[in-house]
Each structure stands twice: as C-alpha cells, then as structure tokens.
C-alpha cells in the first residue's frame, strides 16, 4: 500500500520488459470503472487509463514500450492480483438475467496461447526482423488509422520492433517509416503476410471460451480492443461506494489508497464485528 513499494514482479511475454508493479488502489478502481462510462473518445479513454496503470508500475519509461496486447495482459493480470481471479457479469439472455463467470487466468492463457510466436520472427539471408503489436506509446497512431486496408497496411511499420540490430521503437514515426521503406519488397511481403496471420490468429481466439462471447474478436484496429479493455475495467461502482460507506469509520485517505482486495478484507472484519455485536443475527449490510 505504501506509495514507494512495488511488491509484484512481471516480465512481459513479447517485449521481455521487466517491471515491478503494485495493485490498483480503491481510488484507481473508481476512476477505472467510471472512465469506461464517461469517455466516448477511444483515444482519450486509453490515454486516461494508461496514466492510471503507468502510475502503478515502477519502470514507467519501459512501460510505454510494452505492446498493446501486453497492455491488455497487464490490465487482466492487475485485476487478478487486485480483485481476484474471477469476474462475474450479469447479462440478459432470452429476457432473463444470466450470470456469466469469467476465469481471468484462463482468459490470459487463451490470449497468450492463441498467438503463434513463430510469426514474430522473420529471417532471410540478410535480414532478421522482429515484429509484434504496436507499442502502447503508439496507440494514437493505431487508433487514428481508419479501419480500412490501405490505412492499416500503411501503419505496418509500427509492428517492426527490430531489423537486424536496429531498434525501431525508440525512433520517431517519420524515421521508422523511412527505415521500413528501405526494406526490399520481398521482405515487406513476408512481414505483411505474418502480420495478417497474427490478425487471423487473434480472430480465431475464443478469448472468453464461452458461447455467449464466441463472436467477440480481438482486433486492435476495431473497437473490439477498447470493448475488451472496458470489460476488464468493469467494477460495480455502487458496491464500492457501499463498502466505503460501511468502512467510513476508517481514515478515508487511507481507505482510498488500499487495494480492492485489502478493502474487502476490512469489510469482512467489519461484517464479522457487526455479527458479533448483534449476537450472530443477520447483518443488514451484508454483501452476500
């Protein structure tokens, strides 16, 4: 909970960036859940939540260089450690409310296993090209590409991580595009083929592994990427406020800094205390 300490460690699977990080705070949780409702513009939305997640990692500079899929991994992973590995959605199916239980660890595995990692490396006799999804810092460039083939293909230089020993990701867009344009066309053809195969890989992933979501496809160029992030940013705001109300005897500043898991722990203490006080009778504020 202390601002100085980042007590979890993570190595991102594609970029291999390592960082310590911590759980989101109650305050972050409220902002994350509210922002999914308040931002209509997807660029502004990602900008906002990126800043929240960046604030909880130690290696802030490198965090900008994780790719967009790794950012999604991080959001899910952070939800697991901050709020637990399961998530319950309530939706209407055939006019009736139905509960959908999501196992976040399984979802992480589904996304990770859906990508054929061999597509990320291209070797020819003179070139070794490492590709991957565009970096988090490039998200505006990606989201501002119109969802048409020409615009998407013109943004493919954003997928290049390295060519031989040349690092692309720390260069300006203009520089990256100029370097990309130097590549022989037969290599470009291979790069495009692999990128399209990666898209196809993601199209084929049943991320949630449940029928209800089977048509939900992960595509960074469509709104589905944002929608998936919004699903994992979904928290019941009313419940959070109810918990805060119940715990109002505690220092509110402290309470806003604790993680959702810690808050739930305090709440359980409170409920147990109330039960004891009322001689084991039903608690009017029970969350169960």
């Amino acid at each position: 909970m202390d601002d100085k300490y980042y007590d979890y460690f993570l190595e991102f699977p594609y970029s291999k960036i390592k960082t310590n990080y911590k759980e989101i705070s109650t305050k972050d949780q409220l902002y994350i859940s509210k922002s999914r409702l308040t931002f209509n513009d997807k660029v502004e939305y990602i900008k906002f939540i990126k800043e929240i997640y960046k604030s909880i990692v130690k290696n802030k500079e490198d965090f900008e260089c994780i790719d967009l899929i790794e950012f999604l991994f991080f959001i899910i992973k952070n939800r697991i450690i901050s709020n637990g590995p399961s998530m319950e959605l309530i939706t209407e199916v055939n006019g009736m409310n139905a509960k959908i239980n999501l196992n976040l660890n399984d979802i992480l595995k589904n996304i990770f296993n859906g990508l054929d990692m061999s597509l990320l490396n291209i070797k020819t006799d003179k070139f070794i090209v490492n590709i991957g999804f565009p970096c988090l810092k490039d998200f505006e460039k990606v989201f501002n590409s119109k969802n048409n083939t020409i615009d998407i293909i013109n943004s493919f230089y954003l997928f290049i991580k390295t060519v031989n020993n040349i690092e692309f990701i720390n260069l300006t867009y203009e520089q990256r595009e100029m370097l990309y344009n130097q590549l022989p066309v037969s290599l470009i053809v291979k790069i495009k083929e692999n990128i399209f195969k990666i898209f196809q890989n993601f199209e084929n992933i049943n991320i949630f592994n449940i029928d209800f979501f089977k048509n939900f496809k992960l595509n960074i160029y469509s709104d589905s990427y944002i929608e998936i992030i919004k699903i994992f940013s979904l928290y019941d705001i009313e419940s959070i406020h109810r918990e805060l109300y119940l715990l109002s005897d505690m220092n509110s500043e402290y309470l806003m800094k604790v993680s959702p898991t810690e808050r739930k722990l305090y709440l359980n203490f409170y409920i147990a205390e109330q039960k004891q006080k009322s001689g084991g009778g039903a608690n009017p504020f029970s969350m169960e």
Partner: protein
Amino acid sequence: MEDNILDFNKALNELSQLANNYSFDVWVPSENKTIKFNEINAFQQKQILSGSMDTSIYSKKFNSAIYDIIQNNCSEDISKFTILDKILICLQLREKISNVIKIQNNNDKIDVNISDVIEKLKTSYIHPKESELKHNNISITIYPSYISEEKLYDDTVLIDNKKAEDIKNTDDIQTIISDAFIGELAKSIKNLKIDDNVIELTTLTFKQRMKLVERMPASLIQDVLNIVSEWKKTIDEFLTVKHEDQTVLVKIDPLFFIG
C-alpha cells in the same frame, strides 16, 4: 536528439546497403543477357502505386516511377534499354513481390502465374532489331524507343499533363490522339536519310522530331506503324494468358505491382 539522428542516419545507411545487396538477375532482351537489379523497396512500391491516382491521360507518374526504379536499381548503364525491355524488367521486378497476380476478367478473378510468362518470354521472345524502311529517296531506321527517350519525351512534350477532365470535345480527342501517334513514331525513328544526307533524330528535340515525322510520306508512316504494331502484337501474345475458357492480358500498370 542529436544522438537519435546519428543513430538513425547510421541505421538508414546500414539498411540501404543491405537492400542494395538484395539483388537478383534480370533478363534484358535487347541485350540478350541477365543484369543484376536490386529488388524494389517499399518506398518504390508506394511510388508506383501512387501512379494509380494519376489522373493524367499519359500515365506520366507511373512511367516516371518505373524509369527511376530501373535507373536506381540496375547495376549497369540503362541508356539503351527499350520500352520492350521495360515490360520484361517490370515482370521480373514484380515476380519478387509474388509470382501470382490476380486479373479481373468480366466478373471473374483469374490467377496468373507470372513466372510462367517470364519463362516463356526468356525462351522464345526475340527483341526486334533495327529496320530500314525506304520510300523513293527517303529512308528511315526504326528501333523500339529507349526508355531514356520515353522519359525525355514525357518531360519535354507532355509538360501540360492533360487530365481526362480537360477533354471537352471531339477536337480535343483528335488532337491528343494525333499528337500521341506522332510522338510514338518520333520516339521509334532513329535516323532519317534524304538522298545522302543523314539526320540523326536523337540529336534533335522531340518537338523538332515530331515536325519531321509530320512531313514524312503517308506510306512511310504507315510502314512504321505496321512494324511498331507488330512489335506490340508479338509481346502481347506472350502476355496473353489462357485460363480455362478465358483469355486475359497481363497489363503493366500501377495495380500490377500490388502484392
């Protein structure tokens, strides 16, 4: 920032050098030999494709992009490469993108294997030689125009860059066709001999050449036209591909370079 620029320039240089080593053999029919060419790069492919947006009726942008590519990517002197060589060079450069192209024919898309077309050309196509044509005391030598001449013609004659929307009436169409016709002949005629006086047309400006062509006897012009048409017909036969019951012509235009 300065470090970034230094690193970038180093990287650019490194990639350019590597790309320059990405060469392959291209058969040039007028020379009847293979010559090393670098593959086109992504920038050059974009330059070609931007030709598809050219609303000029002369395809100047596309011709210019192809000329620049041949000049930059060829390891030898290109001044004697002809417009027929250009077709073969384009086919072989395109083959590096992929050896199959999809051609729209009526409502069907037909896959054409351009490696087969190239192979057929390599084994059977013979580049035309110079021909001499005579009419009374006038004789001329004709040869497929050089791409360097074509470039010069585009840059000096087609400077007004006429667009389709500039054609207002049948007179405009007639002028454009007749200028193009005279221009094509002027590109193919190398020299003109009247009695014992030889005029090398290549030493004249295109406007001067076109003036001379306009004054040539009609029967001579017809003979030139027949030969130029024969050159085109011969190469088109190689570029014509049969697919089941359909026949399609492989056209070398900007869209031909889409992978």
